[in-house]
Every structure is written in structure tokens, then in C-alpha cells.
């Protein structure tokens, strides 16, 4: 018994050690490699990990599958960009404004849909996202289908969230991701997190146990939309160019869920693991297959998605932790 306990605590400290080492590696990585391409790939990993974490709150924990998260990301991107272009407002303030605006729009448009279950919610999110996207496409004031370009205001300015080097973006993205993971870690272990999962597992039971299902769905929706808006501002400032298709379209909405589903939806680390797997796959496809094979990574994503659904419904994280558990119990029996 004691031995098992010691084993367990040593395993725990091993995990902690691993975590710390990963963190340190991530922090010093930009100092080791001068390749901007490497930095770009890392930034994209952080970006998609963050975006998929955002999706994961509503769809992974609460179980309301959304194909419409691009709308939230886009709203965040557009809010900060329009404030910057028209009033010279710092994108950091724009980010907060984006969170507020996106929360309001999400509540107004998605709230009525929350009572729908299963497939119907998923389908209606496609429609709502498309309505928002089309409105932006046909409104000249926000740039229409051509979108908005953010001019270079300063070569490197924290206030204007613009840098000529990729290194500041790297650290900003990493910080955003770490803060988000910390918040989600707290959430997962709090009443809110427990209630989210209860709603996903069985709404009737949740209600009977005192869960105000509607209220917690709204909380999840607003949290999920807010995080999406935050990363939307990052998107705008990193690429300095946004248009309705790239920020609100099908592709971005799907990319906001692929890492989570393949990594393991409804878990803290699933989306992060997913992003660390998928983004390099995409990169390899782009580098080695070239322009002619544009979009080929999506073919692989499709195959991965099918395989995960059929063979590892818990995603990579679920499969890995399951395997680890059996190994551990086998080893314990062996002792």
C-alpha cells in the first residue's frame, strides 16, 4: 500500500517535472532557433491550441457541438481592428471591447439555440455563423468581402500590438495560452466545471441534482465566445489582414475544433496535444508537398478525424491515458 502511494507520488512529481521541463523548453526555444519559420509554426500551434481550448468549453465540456466558432473569432478580430483603424485604439483595449461585444452577440444570437439538442444545435450554429459572415461580407463599412488591412503603424510597439520580429508574437501567444490553461485548470476543478460535464452527460439528471442547466449553458457560451474573441484580436495583429472568409468562414471554424476532437475533447490537455500534432502535419504537407498539394493536410485531417471517431473516441489524450492506466495496473499486479 505504502509502496503504491510512493509510486503514485513519484509519478505525480515525474509529471510535474515533465511539465516544468516542457515549459522551460518552450520559453527558451526562440533563443535556440533563429528560424522565423520555426517560430511561425510554434505561434500557430499556440494559436490553435488556444482557439480549440475556447471551442472545447462549450462543445467539449458542455457537449454542445458548434461549427460556428469562427463567428466569435471574427467578431473579436473585427472589433479590435475597426477600433484601431478608426480611432487609433490600442488592440489590447480593442481585445477587451471584442470580448464584450462578442459575448453580447453570442448571447443574443446563440442563446435561443441553447435549448436545441444534439444535431440540431450543431446545424443551427452553421447557419448563425453564415448569417454573421454574410453580413460582414455585404457591409462596405467593415471592408466587405475584401476585408481590412492593418497598416504598419510602428515597427515594434507593444501599445499597437505590432512587431517586426516574430519573437514578441511567440511570447504573447505562449503567455495567452498559459494563462488560458491556468483558468481552464481552475474551471475544471470547480463547481462550474463539474456542472458543465453534468449537463453534457445527462441534462435530466443534472436538473434533478440542482443544476440550473440554462444558466450554465450561457456561462459556457460566453466563456467560449470570449476566449475566441481574444484569439481573434491576436489573429488580426499577427497577420495584419482580416476578411470575412478567413476569420469567420467554414475553414477556420473547423480548424477551431479539429485539434480538440483529435486531441481529446472535454479534456484540459486534449486540444493542446491536438494542436501539437496537427499543425506540424500541416507544416510538413506545405513544405514537402508544395503549392500543388494545397489543402492536402485537410485530407489527412479527415482521415485522422474518422480514425479517432472509430478507434479512439476519447481522442489521443483519452487513448494515451487509457493505455497508461492499463500498463500501470498490469505493472502493479506484476509486483
Amino acid at each position, binding site marked *: 500500500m505504502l509502496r503504491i502511494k510512493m509510486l503514485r507520488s513519484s509519478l505525480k512529481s515525474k509529471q510535474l517535472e515533465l511539465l516544468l521541463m516542457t515549459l522551460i523548453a518552450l520559453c527558451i526555444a526562440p533563443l535556440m532557433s533563429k528560424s522565423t519559420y520555426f517560430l511561425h509554426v510554434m505561434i500557430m500551434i499556440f494559436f490553435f491550441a488556444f482557439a480549440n481550448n475556447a471551442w472545447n468549453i462549450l462543445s467539449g465540456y458542455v457537449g454542445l457541438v458548434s461549427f460556428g466558432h469562427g463567428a466569435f473569432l471574427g467578431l473579436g478580430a473585427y472589433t479590435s481592428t475597426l477600433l484601431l483603424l478608426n480611432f487609433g485604439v490600442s488592440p489590447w483595449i480593442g481585445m477587451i471591447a471584442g470580448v464584450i461585444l462578442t459575448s453580447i452577440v453570442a448571447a443574443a444570437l446563440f442563446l435561443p439555440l441553447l435549448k436545441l439538442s444534439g444535431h440540431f444545435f450543431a446545424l443551427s450554429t452553421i447557419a448563425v455563423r453564415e448569417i454573421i459572415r454574410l453580413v460582414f461580407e455585404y457591409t462596405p463599412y467593415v471592408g466587405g468581402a475584401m476585408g481590412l488591412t492593418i497598416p504598419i503603424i510602428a515597427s515594434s510597439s507593444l501599445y499597437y500590438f505590432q512587431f517586426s520580429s516574430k519573437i514578441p508574437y511567440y511570447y504573447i501567444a505562449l503567455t495567452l495560452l498559459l494563462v488560458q490553461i491556468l483558468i481552464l485548470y481552475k474551471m475544471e476543478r470547480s*463547481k462550474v466545471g463539474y456542472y458543465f460535464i453534468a449537463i453534457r452527460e445527462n441534462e435530466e*439528471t443534472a436538473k434533478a441534482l440542482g443544476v440550473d442547466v440554462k444558466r450554465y449553458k450561457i456561462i459556457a457560451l460566453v466563456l467560449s465566445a470570449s476566449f475566441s474573441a481574444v484569439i481573434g484580436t491576436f489573429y488580426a495583429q499577427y497577420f495584419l489582414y482580416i476578411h470575412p472568409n478567413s476569420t469567420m468562414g467554414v475553414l477556420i471554424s473547423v480548424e477551431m475544433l479539429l485539434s480538440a476532437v483529435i486531441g481529446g475533447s472535454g479534456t484540459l490537455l486534449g486540444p493542446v496535444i491536438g494542436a501539437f500534432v496537427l499543425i506540424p502535419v500541416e507544416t510538413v504537407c506545405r513544405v514537402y508537398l508544395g503549392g500543388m498539394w494545397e489543402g492536402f493536410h485537410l485530407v489527412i485531417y479527415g482521415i485522422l478525424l474518422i480514425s479517432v471517431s472509430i478507434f479512439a473516441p476519447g481522442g489521443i489524450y483519452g487513448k494515451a491515458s487509457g493505455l497508461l492506466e492499463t500498463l500501470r495496473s498490469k505493472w502493479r499486479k506484476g509486483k
Partner: protein
Amino acid sequence: MKLLDVDNVTKNFKGLVAVKNFSFELEKGKLLGIIGPNGAGKTTLFNLITGFYPVDSGTITFKGEDITNLKPHEICRKGIARTFQIPKPLGAISVLDNIMIGAFNRVTSTSKARKIAEESISLVALSQYGSVKANKLPVAFQKTLAIASSLATQPKLLLLDEPFAGLSPTDTERTLITVDNIRKTGVTIILIEHLMRIIMKVADRIVVMHHGEKISEGKPEEVAGDPKVIKAYLGEKYALRK
């Protein structure tokens, strides 16, 4: 002291009367049994009390407070918990986590919720399964889990919907002990049951339901001797046996 007062409650489903002018009272600390043939409206009555269905007319009073047509979670907060006839556990999470969801009804802190859950789980003697995933439990234990979860909401009144249905003799015995332990903590219980034999053992009073109406009420031995009950309920059983 009167804990629950159901007064003249009626519920229709598309013209079909499920519960009709139904009234009963419940004293604190008692165990009330509700029996009746299939489709008598027993589960519907539970759904009305716990706010899962709105009532068409009538009032439900709990601790002197009108709770008619409140939302299920509001009623749970007031102190009425329930189980379902077919257990619907939160399958992907552990048994203890299931019970913690109930415990969060009263507390916000996770450690306090875990403490309450641990008390509930030991009260129903399920501690050894605490870390098992709920959907891996056998159905008999899922029923026990449902009782533990609703108990963790710290109710004054507990509504158990056929906790003994489909159980083996061993599990029935185990559940009887559980129900008895819960009573000892001072929780008032309403229990729907199909089998006369069990309800006679545990109930202080019995209400007999038939076609949505109350046809008899009283102490177990009084009800058992009521010719109306024998005709409506036992009569059917005897007829089936022949």
C-alpha cells in the same frame, strides 16, 4: 409538522388525464409509499412535485411555501431531491464525481463538495466503487448511485422512483438497509413501489393511485384490507396469476 402538501393537483397530456384532483399530506420524518398499477400516474406525480412537468391546476406546498411550477433546480435547492425509475448516471465520470455534482447544490468549494459526497457514498455503502466510471457500474449499483447523488444535495424530502424494481433479492436487501439508514438521518421519503410486499415493510403510510386518482390512503394494513385496493390493484395481480 406538515412538510409537503399536495392539494388538488391535476395534469393532462393531450386530453388524457394522468393525475386527477390529487391531494395528500406528508408529515416530517415519515416514509410515504405510493403504489398503484402501471400507468397509474405515480411517476407523473413525482415529475409534478419536482417541477419536471408544470401542473395544470392545484398547488404544491413545501415547508409552508408554495413551490408549484418552480424549475427543477429551484425545487432541488428548496430541499426536494429525486431519483429516476431508470437510472441515468453521468456515465463518463467517476461515481464520486457523480455524487459531488449533487453536493454542489449546497456548497461552492470543491473540497467541501467532496466531503459531502464521501459522507453520502458511505451512507449507501458504495465507497469501494468511488473511483469507478459510472457507466461501468451494474444497473443495481447505478440505482444506489442515484440515491447517493440525490442525497448529496442534502434534501429534506427524498423522492425515490421504484428503487427496488428489477433488483435481485441481495440487492433488494441492500437497498432496504440503505433506505433505512437514510430514514435514520431524519430525511422524509416518498417511495414509489410496485410490490406490496416491500412497501408493507418500509412505509408508515400508503397512498394508492389508480388512473391518476387516489383510491385509498392509510396505514399499510388498512390499505391492504381496502376492498377498492384489492379490486384495482391486487385484483389485477390475482387475475394475472390465474
